[in-house]
């Protein structure tokens, strides 16, 4: 069986040229899933029947000369935190085991309208709380580069699915780095759009003020193509931005020409150095050098409050999460555990939440309950909101001097499964570099930067732009991708070890 390594854009071209059919492409990805997902465990749910049915419809549209979009017929995987009508959506939690949403998230409705067959739902840390996908109640996802290592998180399933060629495209969500960090450690591309740039309607909320859905792909161009389909104003999300998106595909194509003359790039002093793996920093420096050679003007910028971003995030996020997860009350959907005797609704709630939530979810709900409780509110949540202002001001000042900011995406490469599972603070450090963007709503991309010398595992470069300027991350991201591809003679993923049809 041959693995389909084509990008989404290449598949779309082949479909448009009549060289293949969506049914054939979808079937080959389903075959690949059957072959390798026992070992990778990127999927919680595979919908072969639905995907093939939608693929057949896509083929009819293509045959009639009326494709629904540029990506009509290109299959996609969807993170399990996003509601899919008729297809179970568990958020990686026991409390939602078997829940079948009666509606589609807006991003899913847009995928369907654009004709993308949905292959299935991808694994994730429970309610997107984590950086390794080990907090999934259904077992961890394995990194296709080394099956004994984490694929990042929370969207490790989506990143591993595209890295293992189980899907050409996937959807993720990024609250503190859950798209970008898995991208970095799996050698793939991930984009967190501007907050409000992609609808949150139908995303099971972790932290409303931070959550953002976005593309998970193998190339920058594919991310732009997908972003243009899922992005744009949605009246069902009151935080959705009501203005046209910038031209993202055009920006990616322009960037791929490799000329960055006149682009000012700021290297963030605080996002590097101590706590960052030497091999990650080495690849980062080389990437910056390539950008300089391509004509960019590179300066160093300081964002002094970024050192407080992690603490700020771990107050704001648990506060919002503890409120959001109050909806899991065993009354309207999901698990209900009824203790013996004549339990009250509250007794049932307590027993259900005890049984249905994992450790990390309990930790964060309790931390949030504490941070919001009377007496501590000002000292914790109130302070965090003020520091959030300072972090945004740092971004404002930095973007006066630079068009984009760059840093390593994650401080390390993929670590072994189990290494940090019971050390929450060590786990939180994985999001050191990605969190500031969520706190201030700016867009960011992670692009593979190479393999670290110590362990031969992928590292990523993060490119951040001002809010609403998502086109800049695509332009610079595509430029870096093209420059690196010239050095490597191909994509980084080409260097990944062959996944044999191993079944766990």
């Amino acid at each position, binding site marked *: 069986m041959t693995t389909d390594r084509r990008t989404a854009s290449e598949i779309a071209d082949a479909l448009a040229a009549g060289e293949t059919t969506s049914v054939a492409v979808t079937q080959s990805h389903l075959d690949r899933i059957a072959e390798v997902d026992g070992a990778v465990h990127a999927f919680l749910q595979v919908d072969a029947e639905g995907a093939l049915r939608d693929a057949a419809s896509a083929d009819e549209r293509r045959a009639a000369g009326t494709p629904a979009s540029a990506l009509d017929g290109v299959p996609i995987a969807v993170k399990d935190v996003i509601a899919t009508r008729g297809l179970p959506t568990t958020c990686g939690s026991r409390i939602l085991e078997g829940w079948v*949403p*009666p509606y589609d998230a807006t991003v899913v409705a847009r995928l369907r309208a654009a004709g993308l067959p949905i292959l299935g739902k991808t694994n994730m840390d429970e309610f997107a709380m984590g950086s390794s996908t080990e907090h999934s109640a259904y077992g961890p996802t394995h990194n296709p580069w080394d099956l004994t290592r984490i694929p990042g998180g929370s969207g490790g399933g989506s990143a591993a699915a595209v890295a293992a060629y189980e899907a050409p495209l996937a959807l993720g969500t990024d609250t503190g780095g859950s798209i970008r960090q898995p991208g970095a450690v799996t050698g793939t591309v991930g984009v967190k759009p501007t907050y*409000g740039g992609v609808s949150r309607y139908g995303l099971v909320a972790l932290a409303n*003020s931070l959550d953002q859905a976005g593309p998970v792909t193998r190339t920058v161009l594919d991310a732009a193509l997908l972003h243009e389909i899922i992005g744009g104003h949605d*009246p069902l999300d*009151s*935080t959705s*931005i009501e203005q046209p998106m910038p031209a993202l595909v055009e920006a990616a194509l322009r960037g791929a020409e490799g000329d960055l003359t006149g682009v000012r790039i700021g290297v963030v002093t605080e996002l590097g150095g101590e706590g960052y793996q030497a091999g990650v920093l080495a690849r980062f420096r080389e990437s910056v050098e390539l950008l300089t050679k391509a004509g960019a003007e590179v300066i160093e910028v300081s964002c002094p409050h970024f050192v*407080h971003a992690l*603490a*700020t995030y*771990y107050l704001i996020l648990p506060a919002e999460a*503890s409120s959001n997860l109050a909806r899991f*009350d065993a*009354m*309207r*959907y*999901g*698990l209900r555990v*009824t203790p013996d005797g004549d*339990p*009250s*609704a*509250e*007794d*049932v709630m307590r*027993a259900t*939440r*005890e049984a249905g*939530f994992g*450790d990390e979810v*309990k*930790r964060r*709900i*309790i*931390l949030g*309950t*504490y941070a919001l*409780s009377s*007496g*501590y*509110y*000002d*000292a*914790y949540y*109130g*302070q*965090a*909101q*003020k*520091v*959030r*202002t*300072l972090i*945004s001001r740092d971004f404002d000042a930095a973007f006066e001097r630079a068009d984009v900011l760059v840093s390593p995406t994650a401080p390390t490469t993929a670590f072994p499964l189990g290494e940090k599972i019971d050390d*929450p*603070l060590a786990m*939180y450090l994985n999001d050191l570099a990605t969190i500031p963007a969520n706190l*201030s*709503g700016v867009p960011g991309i992670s692009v593979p930067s190479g393999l670290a010398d110590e362990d031969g595992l992928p590292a990523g470069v993060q490119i951040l732009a001002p809010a609403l300027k998502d086109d800049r991350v695509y332009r610079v991201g595509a430029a870096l991708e093209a420059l690196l591809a010239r050095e490597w003679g191909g994509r980084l993923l080409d260097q990944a070890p062959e996944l044999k049809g191993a079944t766990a």
Partner: protein
Amino acid sequence: MPDTSTGTGAPAAISRDELAHLADLARIDLSDAELDHLAPQLSVILESVASINGVASDEIPPTSHALPLTNVFRDDVVRPGLTAQEALSGAPEVAQQRFKVPRILGDEQ
């Protein structure tokens, strides 16, 4: 508000009893083993996040949202919604086209 003069504002530790109280507020039963396991972990996290105390001065305005929010209005037009059957489709228990829930009052009430 216990905004103490030391600037730390709150104790950076959660005792086992306090954890039990918080779990009760959060409507999560925790076993003895979980209380023993989680209390020290939460104290470590709290100690770490307490580092932001004193970073922002009083005149810094708080940010609740990444981008400024304004109220959003739309015309009050009837649109199709979920049917009762769809809305109830995930419910643990249903009776007479309603969510069926355990008793909500305790003996003492």
